[in-house]
C-alpha cells in the first residue's frame, strides 16, 4: 500500500504538487495520469525519498521509504531510465544494487534474463538504446522481488514486444497481490492495463477511482458520424444529445443511439459516410476531467 497525505512540493513560486492525498491499493494496477508537468514524477520521487516534501507525507507499507529496513526488497521503482552511470556494464550496475541489500549475484543474472538483457549484460550502458536502458531500469526495480512497484513512463522507448511484455508484467504483479503504480501519458496503454486511476492536474488531485467509474462518469458509448454537412446534422439533433466536433467532417454524439442518428440524417437528407458506436475511452474521460482544470503544458517542457 502506498499512501500520500497532503503531499506538497513547492519550488520557489511554483506548487508542483499541491496537497495530494491518495492511496494505491495492493492487487491492482493503478494508473497515474496527468499532463506533462502535472507533478506525477515529483510525486513519485517524493514517495521514494528522492525529493523532500514541502508538506505532507508519503508512506509505503506504513513507513517513510527511508525508514524501510530493506527498501529494495519492498519497493521497486523505475523513475528515470537514463539515470545510470554509462561507464558501467548492466551487470555491474545491478551488482552494486545487490551489494546494498546482500542480494545474491545469481539474482542479478536472473532479472537480466527476465528483462531480455542477458545477452548484453557485459556491455557498457553507454552503448544501450533507450529501450534497453528502460529494461535495465525495470530489472533494477525487480531485483529485490518487491511487493510494491512504481514505474514512471515504463513504456518509453520500448518496441511493441516490449510494450506487450511490460503490460503482462504489470498485470501479473497485480494479480499476485502486489501494489503497482504506473504513470503514463499514453491513455490507451493505461486503459489496457489499469484497474484504478489517479488523475492529477497542476499538482492537484482531479480523480481517484476505478477505470470503470471514470468511464461511466464521462458518459456512455458515443456515436461517431462522418458527414460533409456536419453543421446541418448538428442543428437537427435532439436537445438531449451532446455533440462534439472531432474533425471538419466528423462529430461524436452521446445520449442517443446510433440508429436514431442514422434515421435523423436520412430524414433531413444529410449524407453520412461513416456511422459507428465507439466505446468511451479513458482519453476522452481524462480530457473531460482535465480540460477545464488544466492548461496542458507542451511536450518536453519541465515544470
Amino acid at each position, binding site marked *: 500500500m502506498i499512501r500520500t497525505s497532503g503531499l506538497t512540493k513547492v519550488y520557489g513560486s511554483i506548487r508542483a504538487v499541491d496537497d495530494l492525498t491518495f492511496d494505491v491499493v495492493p492487487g491492482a494496477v493503478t494508473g497515474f495520469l496527468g499532463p506533462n508537468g502535472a507533478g506525477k514524477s515529483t510525486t513519485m520521487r517524493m514517495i521514494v*525519498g*528522492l525529493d523532500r516534501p514541502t508538506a505532507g507525507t508519503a508512506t509505503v507499507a506504513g513507513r517513510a521509504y527511508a525508514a524501510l529496513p530493506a527498501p529494495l526488497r519492498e519497493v521497486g521503482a523505475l*523513475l528515470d531510465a537514463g*539515470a545510470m552511470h554509462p561507464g*558501467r556494464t548492466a551487470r555491474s550496475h545491478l551488482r552494486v544494487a545487490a551489494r546494498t541489500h546482500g542480494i545474491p549475484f545469481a539474482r542479478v543474472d536472473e532479472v537480466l534474463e527476465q528483462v531480455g538483457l542477458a545477452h548484453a549484460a557485459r556491455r557498457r550502458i553507454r552503448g544501450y538504446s533507450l529501450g534497453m536502458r528502460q529494461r535495465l531500469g525495470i530489472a533494477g526495480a525487480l531485483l529485490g522481488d518487491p511487493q510494491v512497484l512504481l514505474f514512471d513512463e515504463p513504456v518509453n522507448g520500448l518496441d511493441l514486444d516490449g510494450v506487450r511484455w511490460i503490460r503482462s508484467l504489470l498485470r501479473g504483479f497485480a494479480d499476485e497481490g502486489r501494489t503497482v503504480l504506473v504513470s503514463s501519458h499514453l491513455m490507451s496503454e493505461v486503459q489496457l492495463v489499469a484497474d484504478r486511476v489517479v488523475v492529477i492536474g497542476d499538482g492537484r488531485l482531479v480523480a481517484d477511482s476505478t477505470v470503470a467509474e471514470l468511464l461511466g462518469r464521462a458518459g456512455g458509448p458515443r456515436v461517431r458520424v462522418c458527414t460533409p454537412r456536419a453543421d446541418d446534422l448538428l442543428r437537427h439533433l435532439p436537445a438531449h444529445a451532446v455533440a462534439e466536433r472531432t474533425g471538419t467532417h466528423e462529430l461524436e454524439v452521446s445520449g442517443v443511439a446510433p440508429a436514431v442518428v442514422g434515421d435523423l440524417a436520412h430524414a433531413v437528407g444529410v449524407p453520412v459516410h461513416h456511422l459507428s458506436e465507439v466505446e468511451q475511452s479513458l482519453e476522452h474521460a481524462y480530457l473531460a476531467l482535465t480540460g477545464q482544470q488544466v492548461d496542458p503544458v507542451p511536450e518536453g517542457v519541465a515544470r
Partner: protein
Amino acid sequence: MSPALTLVRAGRAEWSRIWTVRSSWVFALALLVVVLGFGAVIGNDAASDPAGVTPGSTAWDGIRFTGMFALFGLVAMAVVVATGDHATGGIVPTLQWTPRRGMLLAARTAVVAGTTTLLGLLCMAAGAVVVWTFVPHLGLPVADGLALVGEMGVVLACGTLLAVGLGLATRSTAASLVLAIALLLVGPLLLAQLPYDWTLTVATHLPGSGALFLIFGEGPSDDMTTTSARLTMAAWSLAALAAGGWRLLATDADR
C-alpha cells in the same frame, strides 16, 4: 537490516562503484606509472652520482616528493568518483538503494577517501622499492617507511576528504576540480607571491600550504609547524565535508 549492516553493505557498494568504471583504473594506473617512473629516475641519479645523495637518507626519502603528484592525482580521482553519481544521474538509483543519506555519506566518505589514500601510499611504497633497487645501500628501513606512510597518510587523507566534500557540495566535477586546484595549488602559490602580509596569512592557511609543508618541510611562512599544517588541512577537509554532507542530507537528490 541493522544500521551497522546497512553501513557495511553501503560501503561494499561504494567499493564496487569505484572499481566498476574505467576512469578509476586509469587514474590508478597513471599514478602508479608516474611514481614508479620518478622512482626509477631518482634511483638512477643516486646510483650514478653517489656524492649527490644526502648522507643518512634512505630510499624512502627519495620518493617523498612524489607525494605531491599523488595528492593531485588522488584528489582528481576522488572528485571524479564523488561527483560521478551526480554527473550521470546515477544518484537516483543510488538513493533508492541506500535511502538513509547519513549512511550513504558515511560510506562514501570513508570508502572513497580510504581507497584513494591507500592507493597513494601503496604507489609511493612501490616507488621507494624502485629507488632501492637502483641504490640498495641506501636501505629500505621499515621504521622509516612507516613514518613516511604516517606523514603522507595524513596529507593524502585530508586531500581526498577535501575532494569528497567539494564533490558532494558542488555536485559538479568541473567546479570541484577548479576549487581543489585553487585551494591546493594556485591559491597558495599566487597569494604567497603578493607583497602584502594579509595575503601571506591567507596563503599560509590554505590546505595546499599545509600539504607543501608536510611533504617538503617548508611553506610560505616560517611560522608553520607540522601541527599547524595538519590542523589547517584537517579544518579545510572538515569544512568541505560539512558543506557536502549538508547538501546531501538536506536537499533534493539531483536538483
